[in-house]
């Protein structure tokens, strides 16, 4: 465990930051932040091995509240920033966080391409159905006809299903947690971080200020006869998401169909846990490491540029030669 002692003698995570937090009381973000801090500590990473990239919105502020490399990027662009850092320095553990509007609306193109690239990073979408920081507009996961308190009229758009989108895009680890189930969330975060490809973890969370429809009571199923609540764990019911490294097409098809089935469930029974876990798909960093000269010697972050005198190390003789012409004397 990486702990640091505080003045009062309490053990605190090395990743803990004392910065004042300006999220609303009761916000699901707190559960996610706590889980992330616990997970990073539990898997014994050092703060200078971890870079947390945030999008824009309440969730995007997460990097400020962790003591590690924390990068608050642009709305929708968190994945390209994170991917650039990971490819240039693959030794970094890279985590991207952002809201559902950030990742599924303005950043949807990057989400799709991040899945396609299958770079080893973890993307956590804080899913609360609203744009909180701009005061409660409908976000892409809000369902058709739903009306949260700041909306003038019910939503006229169908929602986006993040699990389905992630599956189609090629994410190789797809999971869903709940902000207030910290034990499960820590487990999911650890799996996602350890997964060697692109991982998408969606975290359902109440927005106590703007989303009165999906509050803690709703997730607890207080409006239902069933007192176990809406949420259940796929793995508790024996769901096996794994596509092993040597799997054939039939296994892949079956696991994808299974993922689609689980992704479709909503309303009274909402699955959490791991939906899909594919170890069979190519990862961008593999061909890069194989094909790029010197990648095994120095990653882009470490690439030597100049000697001690500050002169270029690159030797371009052969490159120039290919573009050179030798003048010849022709006897007539």
């Amino acid at each position, binding site marked *: 465990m990486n702990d640091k002692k505080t003045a009062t003698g309490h053990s605190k995570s090395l990743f803990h930051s004392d910065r004042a937090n300006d999220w609303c009381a009761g916000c699901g973000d707190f559960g996610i932040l706590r889980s992330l801090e616990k997970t990073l500590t539990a898997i014994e990473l050092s703060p200078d091995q971890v870079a947390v990239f945030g999008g824009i919105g309440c969730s995007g*502020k997460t990097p400020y509240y962790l003591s590690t490399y924390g*990068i608050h990027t642009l709305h929708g662009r968190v994945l*390209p920033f994170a991917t650039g850092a990971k*490819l240039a320095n693959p030794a970094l553990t890279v985590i991207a966080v952002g809201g559902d509007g950030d990742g599924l609306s303005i950043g949807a193109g990057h989400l799709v391409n991040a899945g396609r690239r299958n770079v080893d990073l973890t993307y956590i979408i804080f899913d609360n159905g609203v744009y909180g920081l701009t005061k409660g507009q409908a976000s892409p996961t809000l369902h058709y006809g739903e009306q949260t308190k700041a909306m003038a009229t019910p939503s006229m758009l169908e929602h986006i299903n993040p699990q389905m989108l992630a599956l189609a895009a090629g994410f190789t680890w797809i999971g869903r947690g709940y902000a207030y189930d910290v034990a499960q969330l820590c487990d999911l975060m650890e799996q996602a971080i350890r997964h060697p490809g692109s991982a998408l973890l969606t975290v359902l969370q109440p927005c106590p200020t703007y989303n009165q429809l999906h509050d803690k009571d709703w997730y607890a199923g207080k409006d239902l006869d069933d007192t176990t609540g809406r949420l259940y764990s796929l793995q508790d019911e024996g769901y096996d998401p794994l596509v092993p490294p040597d799997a054939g097409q039939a296994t892949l098809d079956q696991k994808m169909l299974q993922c689609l089935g689980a992704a479709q469930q909503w309303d009274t029974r909402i699955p959490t846990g791991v939906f899909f876990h594919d170890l069979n798909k190519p990862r961008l960093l593999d061909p890069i490491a194989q094909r790029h000269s010197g990648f095994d010697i120095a990653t882009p972050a470490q690439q030597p540029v100049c000697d001690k005198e500050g002169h270029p190390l*690159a030797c371009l003789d052969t490159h120039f*030669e290919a573009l050179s012409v030798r*003048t*010849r004397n022709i006897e007539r």
Partner: protein
Amino acid sequence: MKRHNNELAWRIGGPQGSGIDRLANVFGRAIASSGLKVFGHREYHSNILGRHSYFDFCISPDPLNSHRETADILVTFDAESLCRHLLTVADDGHVLFATDDADVALDSLAFLDARLKQDISAMFAQSGQPPTIAGLLEQVRHRGVQPVPIPYSELLAALAHECKLSRHQAGRAINTLAVAASAALLGLSNELMITELENVFGNDPDMLSLNTRAVARAYDFVAEHHNSASASQPWLHEQRKVRETLFINGSQSVALGKLAAGIAFQTYYPISPASDESLFLESQDPIPLRNGSHAAPLVLQVEDEIAAASMACGAALTGARSATSTSGPGFCLMTESLGWAGMNEVPLVVSLYQRGGPSTGMPTRTEQGDLQFAIHAGHGEFPRLVLASGDVEDCFYDAMQAFNYAERYQLPVIHMLDKALASTSQTLPLFRYEDKKIDRGESFSNNDPKATPVARFALTSSGISSRPLLGQDNAQHWLSGAEHDTYGQVSEDPVVREHMMEKRMHKLQQILDDLPAEEKLNIYGNETARFTIITWGSTKGAVWDAVKRMAQNDIEVRAIQLRLLWPFPTEELTTLLADAAPLVVVECNYSGQLNTLLREHIERGADHLLIKYSGRPMSGDAVFTALQEIHAGNGAPRRALHNPNE
């Protein structure tokens, strides 16, 4: 064959996909290997196959800086090329064309622009000639233009027989027949052509055999039918000592400059005319290093230019020398990341290949229309450095230097280029980079794990803080696109805001204080002359050539090429331009964007603004003519250069 001003202008036209680009390259290299200087200019449509493209080579024993708008020898094998360029052939020039095309009616040419058809029709209406290729040739014959009909069909049929190929397969060598026939007319040794063909087709024995035989046939044909034309061209074979010379285009030059600088990461999204550079860069793997190791930049094609700029930023944060390369429409998408890089003091290099805008504009044509955009791109105020290359050689050294600026001042650097530079290929002396200095800026180190997190944005008098990297030991820090304190934590405190704005924006003054004058501008011609031209970017070549010709005509002119466009070198220009009369501003755009900057910063605009916005680059000839008019007192305050035949 007569030359003008000791230069010979060679032009080949043909449909895209017919290989004229490749064969023009062979021809250019062959000419260069004879010891002559070559300046190549390429025009093409935004199209894969069939539309017209052409390639100019200006050839001279002396260094050349721009193309010519007239052709001393026009090489064609299709009717459309003949229609488009016949009127630009010099009075005593030669025209190679397909014998079979003589009866082609102009109306049958689907890709000929309606405007051009109208112009030609009007000409026919006056002359009474039939509206065919033969009629068109008749129109120029009285000017002394010499037609050189080439029976391509017969030559190809013979070639097919000789190589045991179908007529269709042999047809692929029509470009080689055309180019070789022109080379023979010029008196260029066929050995030089064949050596360069081996260079291009070395891996494909069948194509090499076909093309070599095509060269032989073309030379035989010319010897038999046009011996007089090739009788004596001693200037093509000036005896010189054997030496190496570069034959390189702007895209390649930029890529090699980046490699010399140690670029480790480049992103791009496909776009004309910028992508050539990224593709070339990627193909240069491996790069040997002087320490015995080797490396290669990671070149990545990504989903869009937003991702390209963001990803390059992400990589730069880890310490990799990072760049992205794009053109106007892509640069539009990069502006938010540019602002982020300014806010977070990220050394990001953006190679911006300007093309005709706005919107899709003219993807394969040139313009210097993005100067004001590059200077102002992004909302709010943040420092950036904008430098512009004027020629293919500048492209190399500027691309190399861009990384030094980016890391020294920790800001985005926009390296301005354009389509004209990208597709200009020319002979140049070998580039010397081994003794150039690499400047990685203020590095950060911390041996005390307890002294973290670190203040990434510590306030300093220069505005530049030492730069911790993502993944560096004991260097944990925050970064934010939101206004932030010295630790990178979001802050809306008014005093913090003021300090941070001052810190960042001070870099602009720091740059102006630090950089020597020669990194800000170049002066050419007579430095004491009052007649002053000021230009930036790829118009440099045309201006240099025009100044040279003015001097040959005993008119002393001074030309200034601005290299540093932002921060604007106000002080140097104020001094330099104090007694300028007349002041001529030359640039390829509509509004005179540099002129606007001059008015804004030194309160002195052009007496004569010389512009061009047709999507084609300026030539030395056109600028020279305009300068002569200005010198004679006939210059207009604003003069746009035109050429309907480009």
